[in-house]
């Protein structure tokens, strides 16, 4: 997929607009940071404005749903400029059949595609807020209308809503779910200022108010970021609705392909009753029973929730009532058979089975008993924090022995708290607070399983699924574009997308979520690559949970923008990696956080118009070596920009704590690295296939967007030509005046000397000459005016050119780059007496 040819007109309107620059060392990278409004009603068209970095030459917006399309907004031609279009505004049309949900949008730019940004579709009408920072300027919030706003720093947005006595509304402020940095808060007060309630973090980080008006009144809503932060990166979608709201669903899972009865707990439920007396915080929940057919998810909307929650197999479901759709909830797909947990007593469960239980009270400790065969490993997993954020289950296995008096004795022999850690670190943070383990019973016998919530949860919504089955190795993969940050250069984490500059590389980080006791290695490949982009398979080693794929452009590569897939293979089990992204960039990982989430597609862009600043080109990307031997890897250095200081090239991707490296002088054009594959090194090699790259770190004398200078220069040249033409025209026009004057004078002279018979014709001649002179003078004046206008246009283009020149001026920039992947096949040692 390629974007339409960039129109030079754009340069003049948008070159110096754009998003918030981040203090990072990365090369300029396109990022769609904001799109406002961040949603639209199905069947409607809306004009959106985009913001971010490197968006000046955006050619279009691509949505994850084919029913959402964008078109450029035309700008008519002017005297010196051809017709064009608005650079940062688009018209977005949503087809009527697009189901309400959260979709994604990426911007296609000169440098490639951006990382995706959420874009919501709703069935309700939409509005965009205006300045409303005081109660006096409170804006009307009609019921069942989405208000698009964004929080401003140190300010509170005010809305008013008219409600009649007894009217119940659910007021939601969606922010986290649309990639907003806003930690939303809502409060509601009556017209006299008496506040009834305020809320935050009820649904993830987003607030929810369930309010029943005590009297007819115009109520005042306040909406703000919890710490009064704000700006364009803090968008929200506020809605007051009488649609149903689901708090939780019990049981949390059912068997796919069946139709199962579920109890829905929430508010405004059709025919709902609070008879069960279930409370969540201060809210009394209604409940209804609904039969739901369970089937694979066909909707295209993003799953709500965090990364691990989104990976749980299941479907997203909404409750429809009188044309109003509830918030979406997840229903998991169970493994058979399902056992319903019973509170207060030890329960016997079978292998395999899935038990649906609940931490009823704080400090609850649920006991289960199961029979197991000695030596046969079992996979035991609890899904709780993936159902309700904040839960933190922990489990223990006790071996039961019975003494001669028939008394049972328990010995704790296994346990687990959190499985998985945080493999993405601060750059792609995702944590699983659930517990799981592979349990190998020491002997045939009966075992006890104890399950407890570490965070002291306990209540009707604290549901869990307890899975126990024989080990059947499986895994999930997540992949995300990765930024090769120069060491110690920055604490920033930029939102990244996969872009290959001419001759360069880009990294895809892959995370493996191992399940059911799977420990083996995973072969990783990339599918859908365009011609001229390559990525050799990488083995994610046994026991590890991360690996990097390095995609590199060959000389055959051409400009390309499209979507690729990362595939993991273990024997016959193929898994497509779920793409992931972070919601926003941060400047300091020690004090800020970013949110990781799964996304629909993995964009890849190849931009041959801009060359990678430094390319490390190994002489070969394939070596063979016997265990215990060294290889020498010669490489060349291609530079598109000058270096400041030396270039350090190190081996990257092998489990060294101190990777071998070489320092090269700034003018070096080649180098060589020696790498030992021995069993005695700190990197203990074993026979097999190893992949790694050469990572270079240096300071480049970077020149940004030289093409913009060229375009600006071309535009200036064009205008200069026009100016020149206009001036020539002006000169010609001016020059025509004198002959006309002379002709007139001659005619007048002739007229004065003429006889009566000649007079008449000579008078006509004088009149003609006068007219010609007037015409020449008018043409001259008009030509002069045009010169003035074109000169003004030239001044403007010169200013732009100057600015483009400023931007492209050489600046020191810390930079890291990777060579393409090198594969080394390590063979057993030749002198190994055992071989």
């Amino acid at each position, binding site marked *: 997929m390629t974007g339409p040819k960039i129109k030079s007109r754009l340069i003049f309107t948008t070159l110096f607009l754009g998003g918030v620059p981040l203090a990072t060392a990365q090369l300029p990278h396109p990022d769609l940071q904001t799109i406002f409004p961040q949603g639209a009603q199905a069947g409607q068209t809306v004009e959106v404005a985009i913001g971010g970095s490197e968006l000046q030459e955006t050619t279009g917006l691509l949505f994850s749903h084919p029913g959402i399309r964008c078109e450029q907004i035309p700008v008519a031609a002017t005297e010196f400029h051809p017709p064009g279009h608005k650079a940062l505004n688009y018209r977005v049309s949503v087809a009527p059949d697009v189901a309400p949900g959260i979709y994604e949008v990426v911007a296609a730019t000169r440098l490639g595609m951006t990382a995706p940004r959420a874009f919501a579709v709703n069935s309700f009408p939409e509005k965009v807020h205006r300045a409303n920072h005081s109660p006096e300027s409170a804006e009307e919030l009609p019921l069942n209308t989405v208000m698009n706003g964004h929080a401003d720093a140190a*300010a509170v947005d005010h809305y008013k809503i008219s409600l009649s006595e007894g009217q119940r509304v659910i007021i939601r402020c969606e922010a986290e779910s649309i990639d907003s940095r806003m930690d939303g808060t809502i409060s509601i007060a009556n017209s006299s200022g008496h506040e009834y309630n305020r809320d935050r*973090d009820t649904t993830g980080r987003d607030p929810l108010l369930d309010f029943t008006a005590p009297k007819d009144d115009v109520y005042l809503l306040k909406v703000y970021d*919890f*710490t009064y932060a704000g700006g364009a990166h803090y968008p929200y979608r506020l809605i007051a609705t009488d649609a149903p709201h689901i708090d939780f669903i019990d049981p949390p899972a059912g068997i796919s392909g069946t139709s199962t009865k579920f109890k829905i707990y929430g508010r405004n439920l059709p025919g709902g009753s609070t008879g069960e007396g279930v409370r969540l915080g201060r809210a009394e929940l209604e409940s209804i029973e609904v039969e739901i057919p369970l089937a694979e998810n066909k909707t295209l909307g993003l799953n709500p929730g965090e990364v691990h929650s989104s990976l749980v197999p299941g479907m997203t479901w909404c409750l429809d009532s009188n044309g109003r759709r509830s918030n979406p909830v997840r229903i998991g797909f169970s493994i058979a058979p399902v056992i319903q947990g019973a509170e207060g007593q030890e329960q016997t469960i079978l292998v395999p089975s899935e038990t649906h239980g609940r931490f009823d009270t*704080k*400090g609850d400790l649920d006991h289960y008993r199961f029979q197991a065969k000695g030596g046969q490993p079992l996979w035991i997993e609890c899904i709780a924090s993936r159902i309700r954020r*904040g839960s*933190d289950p922990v489990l223990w296995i006790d071996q039961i022995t019975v003494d001669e008096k028939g008394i049972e004795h328990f010995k704790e022999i296994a346990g687990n708290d959190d499985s998985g850690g945080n493999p993405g670190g601060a750059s792609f943070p995702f944590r699983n607070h659930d517990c799981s383990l592979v349990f190998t019973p020491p002997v045939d016998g009966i075992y006890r399983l104890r399950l407890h919530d570490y965070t*002291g949860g306990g209540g009707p919504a604290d549901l869990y699924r307890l899975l126990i089955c024989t080990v059947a190795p499986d895994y999930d993969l997540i992949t995300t574009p990765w930024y090769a940050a120069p060491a110690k250069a920055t604490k920033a984490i930029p939102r990244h997308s996969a872009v290959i500059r001419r001759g360069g590389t880009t990294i895809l980080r892959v995370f493996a979520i191992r399940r059911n006791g799977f420990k083996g290695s995973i072969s990783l490949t990339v599918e859908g690559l365009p011609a001229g982009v390559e990525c050799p398979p990488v083995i994610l080693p046994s026991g590890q949970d991360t690996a990097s794929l390095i995609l590199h452009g060959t000389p055959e590569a051409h400009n390309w923008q499209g979507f690729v897939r990362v595939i993991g293979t273990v024997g016959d089990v193929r898994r497509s990696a779920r793409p992931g992204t972070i919601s926003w960039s941060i400047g300091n990982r020690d004090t800020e956080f970013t949110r990781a989430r799964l996304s629909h597609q993995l964009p890849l862009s190849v931009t041959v118009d801009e060359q990678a600043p430094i390319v490390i080109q190994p002489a070969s990307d394939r070596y063979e070596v016997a265990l215990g031997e060294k290889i020498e890897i010669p490489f060349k250095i291609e530079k598109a920009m000058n270096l400041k200081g030396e270039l350090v090239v190190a081996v990257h991707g092998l489990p060294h704590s101190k990777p071998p490296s070489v320092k090269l002088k700034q003018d070096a054009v080649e180098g060589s690295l020696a790498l030992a594959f021995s069993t005695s090194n700190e990197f203990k090699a074993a026979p097999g296939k190893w992949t790694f790259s050469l990572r270079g770190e240096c300071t480049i004398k970077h020149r940004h967007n030289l093409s913009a200078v060229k375009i600006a220069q071309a535009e200036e040249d064009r205008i200069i030509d026009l100016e020149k033409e206009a001036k020539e025209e002006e000169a010609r026009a001016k020059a025509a005046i004198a002959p006309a004057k002379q002709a007139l004078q001659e005619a007048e002279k002739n007229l004065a000397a003429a006889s009566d018979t000649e007079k008449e014709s000579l008078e006509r001649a004088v009149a003609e000459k006068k007219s010609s002179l007037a015409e020449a003078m008018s043409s001259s004046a008009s030509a002069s005016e045009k010169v003035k206008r074109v000169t003004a246009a030239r001044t403007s283009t010169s200013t732009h050119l100057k600015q483009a020149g400023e931007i492209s001026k050489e600046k020191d920039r810390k930079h890291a780059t990777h060579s393409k992947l090198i594969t080394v096949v390590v063979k057993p040692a030749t002198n190994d007496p055992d071989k």
Partner: protein
Amino acid sequence: MPRFLNLLDSPVSPAVKPLIFPLSCLFLLWTAQQGATEEAGDNGVLVTTGSSSARVPGLAPLRWSSDGDILLKGPHDVHQLVLTHRQNDGEDDVTAIATFFVEPPGVVTVSPDGLIRVNGNGSATITAKHAAGQLSRTVKVSQADDLLPISFPNEIVPIFTRHGCNGGGCHGKAEGQNGFKLSLLGYEPQDDHGYLVREGLGRRIFRASPGRSLLLLKGSGELPHQGGSRLSRGSDDYNAIVRWIRQGLPYQSEGDPSVSRISVEPRERLTRARAVQQLRVVAHFSDGSSKDVTRIAQYEANDEDMAIVSDKGLVTMQERTGSTSVMIRFQEHVDVFRATIPLGAPVENLPPSNNLVDQHIFAKLRTLGLPPSQASEDSTFLRRATIDIAGRLPTLEETDEFLDDTDPEKRQRKVDQLLASTDYADYFAGKWAAILRNKRSSPHHARGSFAFHSWIRNALHHNLPYNAFVRQFVAASGEVGENPPVIWYRTVKDSKEQLQDVAQIFLGQRLQCAQCHHHPYEKWSQDDYYGFEAFFSKVGRKPGAQPGEEVIFNKIGAASARNPRSGRALSPKPLGGEELILANHHDPRDSLADWMTNESNPFFARMLVNRYWKHFFGRGIVDPEDDMRVTNPPTHPDLLDSLARSFVESGYDLKGLVRTICNSRTYQLSSIPNEHNLDDRQNYSRFYPRRLPAEILLDGINSVTNAKEKFNGQPQGIRAVQLPDDQFTKESYFLSVFGRPDMNSACECERADDVNLAQALHLVNSTNIRNKLASEDARAALLVKNGEASVEARISELYRRAFSRAPGPEELTIGVQYLKRKRTPPDPSTLSEDQRKNARSPEAMAREPYEDLIWALLNTKEFLFNH
């Protein structure tokens, strides 16, 4: 009328006579409460004889502090006599003025101050003679010639304590003094024995000639001693040490009992100004025996303005009216003597009690003869209650509406309105956030500190029962997103700090001392301390969702904390309770919350009602409010108990408690003293004015001047009282100079309530205040713009905004004169270039008189104080 009536003088003057009845009634009530065997005769009807001591028929005028024979054992045993002369208007200690006779002589001697010493074996009768009569009792002496073995912990260590040898500033400090170390206040007698007998090869003791022991030579000042002469040669204490050395430095004999408690006689006394009271202190041992330790116990008066005490246990009352106490310490045991000194003025026309607060307060005022001030005016009440409940000044509209309201129930309605408003939640959330140390030590901690403040505010707004509030706080687990109270664990990281804060904030027990040694003023030992710490021993932490946040959880395993001195690992142990046996998965903090919030907990409800009492009255029933030790007794114990009981019975209803306090007539008394109660600081006979807290003062100035404060990162118009964490104290000079706390401590005392020069200068002479007064949209400008209102109306508006009352005629006259005074702009020719450049516009000049007037009002005590 004299301020203090000396009822000891006789005859009773006619002016005093009306007092006799109520005082006598109280006395009778008191004696009945003491469980005395004597019964008040004739239903308490008095027999007035016209003499100085009106007698109650059937009651002997003289009595000993305890009955029965005195048994003395060994040559060095002593017994302090305490002789009381009962009168119908009180009791007097006459020990020092009575004359003692011993029959037969030779068995014991009695000193003029009533100390019996042994002379020989046998039995004798001691007769005390006094103007009111005489009284005898028997003393029996045994083993007078025997050399009884000395107990080092029971007899020698108390000598070190009494003479200050083992104090924290002397040999008792951790490193000792000049090479000689003793355990602090003798709490570790085993260690002390080792220091004396074994350390330095016993060089401090000369067994062959005890008097030449370094210990005694230095202690008596015979050799240079930095601490001076502490033991005079030949004194009882000196001799005791000599005897101990002679006996071979024993620790104690096998089977020697230990002290299980001490008691003081009398425990309580209704007395008079300048009266004296001899105390007798008895140590009760584990074997059931007891011993007089009056002369080796330690005494400390709580308030030396009210009573002083000698090292022999003689208490001398001072001039001030009220209740006071003397702490008595022996080894690790403490007891308290309480004295009430009445004024004795007529207490007439007390308003009817509105609730239990008034019942107790008025009863004591009657006892003391301390007439209360008048009820406060409506305007004063409105301003006071709005400040105390809602943390702000009343608005102009509120003032006008309240003052115009004729409903007799309007004060109650106002209290209800204020409690229902979010202003109450805002104000009290700030109060709790300070003691719960809601700090933002790094900018990215804001989410946590905001969330914690918001959680507190929400709990208060919805009137979450206090027991549930504390339970959710103390046993908090999870992440800040779901459970904001976990943020407390971010600031208060160490389990010792956690236990100390929880004990101080919710139980009023300051346990810090017991970390290193037995609490000097309480019964808490190191085992109590570490047993309490064990409740927090399983607090686990995991990384949270954002930098600077954590997941708090209960680690699995046995909860325990080690007493570093004994090395013993203690299980969780409630204060005064037994160690708990808890399951490994059980969160001990849940058990702590169970114990704390149990209705029978002796500390929990009393602490809270006392904290809130102090909030509204400026002084705790126990003061400091979070130091509720035995040795710091309440001024109104029954009130404290009743309030606590009522609080528990209400379901821990915090708003209900505020209602009870604010609807009492006591709270609504005027702060203007009458002729009797100017000096009253603890009986609530009037409202005690106090400076406005920093935030309320700043908000108040802003509301009067129509200024808006800007706090970093907060929306325009937020009031200082709504600020969530400590950050703004650093940022705002005003808040800092007026004492907003930095939230470093669990003690409310971190909030400075003093008045100092920096504050005065800031109010009188700062750009900050000047800008508030002189801005284009300031109150002065608005008043000037409001051409329709008369000058009088404008002045009235200002008074109603600042003081919640209309100006008096004189105030109005002065104001009008000042505002109407003709002002001539300065002659430009007399001005310098700069002055001309900075000269105010004519409009600005017109505002100046109003600015001056507002400035003057802001600097009045009436504005600066809650009164």
